């Protein structure tokens, strides 16, 4: 299985061909984003005199800077909240064998199948009554609650596989439950925290439906909403649109490429749990 044979070489070529097919849309995206609007040659022909003008125009006219700041703020704060409350909740849920614990866990897991469209519409009314419509804080609140089930699920699965020895030793040494959590449990949770951090960041950053509801008509936007607005505004100016799309995916791809090893390994960890 480990010998590099002619068959392996053929497979390698096939897989590279498949990857090229997969990457084709990205080639077109980059190719057109650097192309002047006056250049009307085929979208698959390599751009002859690339320009940066689309990027500066898109950045200036799309309000992408403000959207970027909002997206970073919303994602960072809500993911921090959800990681904190979910890891804390997972600790008794994974350890206690009482009835309330099992019931609470199942209740929270119900959130995994409830479609967000069901909660998002009635919550729209509450958000409006609280005067939070159009504010990015409504989104922080929304994601902090929405991501609880999935994150708690990850933490509980991980905790159940961890031995109790350390925390029991800490309790015998006179640690209170909070101290034991902070100094014994939390450090042991680090691998699953990285996985949960990345997966939550991706889903919060990428969400479109909720900010479309809660922020529409306001000058506060997140990246996906700003991009959608930009497409609506510059309907057929695709070179400009592609520059905006490219700008918007750079932060996500940067995070992904720097953390890809732990993301991909995180899946393997999740499978064992």
């Amino acid at each position: 299985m480990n010998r590099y044979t002619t068959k392996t070489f053929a497979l390698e070529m096939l897989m590279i061909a498949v990857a090229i097919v997969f990457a084709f849309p990205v080639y077109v995206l980059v190719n057109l984003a650097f192309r002047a609007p006056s250049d009307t040659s085929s979208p698959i022909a390599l751009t002859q005199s690339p320009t940066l003008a689309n990027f500066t125009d898109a950045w200036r006219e799309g309000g992408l800077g403000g959207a970027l700041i909002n997206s970073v703020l919303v994602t960072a704060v809500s993911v921090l909240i959800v990681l904190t409350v979910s890891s804390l909740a997972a600790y008794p849920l994974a350890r206690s064998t009482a009835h309330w614990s099992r019931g609470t866990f199942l209740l929270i897991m119900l959130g995994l199948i409830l479609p967000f469209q069901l909660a998002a519409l009635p919550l729209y009314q509450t958000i409006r009554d609280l005067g939070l419509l159009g504010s990015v804080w409504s989104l922080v609140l929304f994601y902090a609650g929405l991501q609880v089930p999935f994150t708690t699920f990850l933490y509980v699965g991980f905790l159940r596989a961890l031995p109790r020895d350390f925390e029991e030793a800490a309790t015998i040494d006179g640690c209170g439950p909070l101290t034991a959590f902070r100094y014994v449990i939390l450090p042991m949770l680090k691998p699953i925290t990285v996985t949960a951090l990345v997966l939550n960041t991706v889903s919060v950053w990428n969400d479109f439906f909720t900010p479309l509801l809660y922020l529409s008509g306001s000058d506060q936007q997140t990246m996906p909403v700003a991009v959608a607005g930009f497409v609506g505004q510059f309907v057929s100016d695709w070179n400009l649109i592609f520059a905006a799309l490219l700008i918007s995916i750079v932060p996500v791809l940067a995070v992904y490429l720097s953390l890809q090893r732990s993301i991909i390994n995180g899946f393997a960890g999740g499978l064992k749990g």
Partner: protein
Amino acid sequence: MTTDLQPRRRTSAAPPWWFTLPALLLFAFVVLVPSARGVYYAFTDWDGLDPDFAFIGLDNFTAMADDPDALQAIWHTLLIAVAITVLQNGLGLLLALGVNTAIKSRNLLRVLLFAPAVVTPIVTAYLWRNLLGPDGAVNSLLGVFGVEGRNWLGDPDLALWMIVLVVVWQFAGYSMVIFVAGLQSIPKEIYEAAAIDGSGPVRRFWSIVRPLLAPAVTINLMLSIIGGIKLFDQVYALTGGGPGHATDTISTLIYKDAFTLGEFGYSIALAVVLTAIVAVISAGQYTVLNRNEKAAS
């Protein structure tokens, strides 16, 4: 070690219940209470604004049964979800089998093929809207091979499948990574022993890989079918539900009915139907796959 000290030590080590309180409150405020209220609104004629609204029983649901747009949207939702599940996981499994071999570029390929899955779906959908346009790159590419281009998103017979294509393109790498994780949990010894015993690749796949891959299959099927049922962003960006209502799903109809038609009650009734579909499919899937996993282990 059956002294009576042990149980007492256990209980003292058990973390207190109030640790769950912050998570539970947030979850209740954002998901649980609004969902319960949603179920109530589904039986009213609320328009989303007027504080005076009436309880109308099952009227929203009977209206739905007579609404061709709603029935079509439910059908589209199921069709898209099944098509995505089959194609995304089929392709994901093939890719996983491909990169889980001795080829030199396997790590690079994994990183590349997974990359689309982290990009904002609304962004990839806009990209594809252009690629599939009448003057887009797909038609240009087909032109190179002498194949006549088509209006992929403007043709009611094709548009739905284009949405499936875009979702599969974006998330096949996601399925692949989960399958790779599953494949790597299969001990090499079993596989090699079978090869020495003279079983061919197909036989080895069917008798060893397939049963041991069951947990990865469960996770993948759950994720893709639920994701497919809830699909909104890609439809919104690619076709907006059109042409006509050819690609409307329950999600896009919920959005249109609530925010452009002011039919909040009716829209929430659609969301309840969506929830029921997700619940039935999840429960069915859980039962079947759980049985398979148990049988396999």
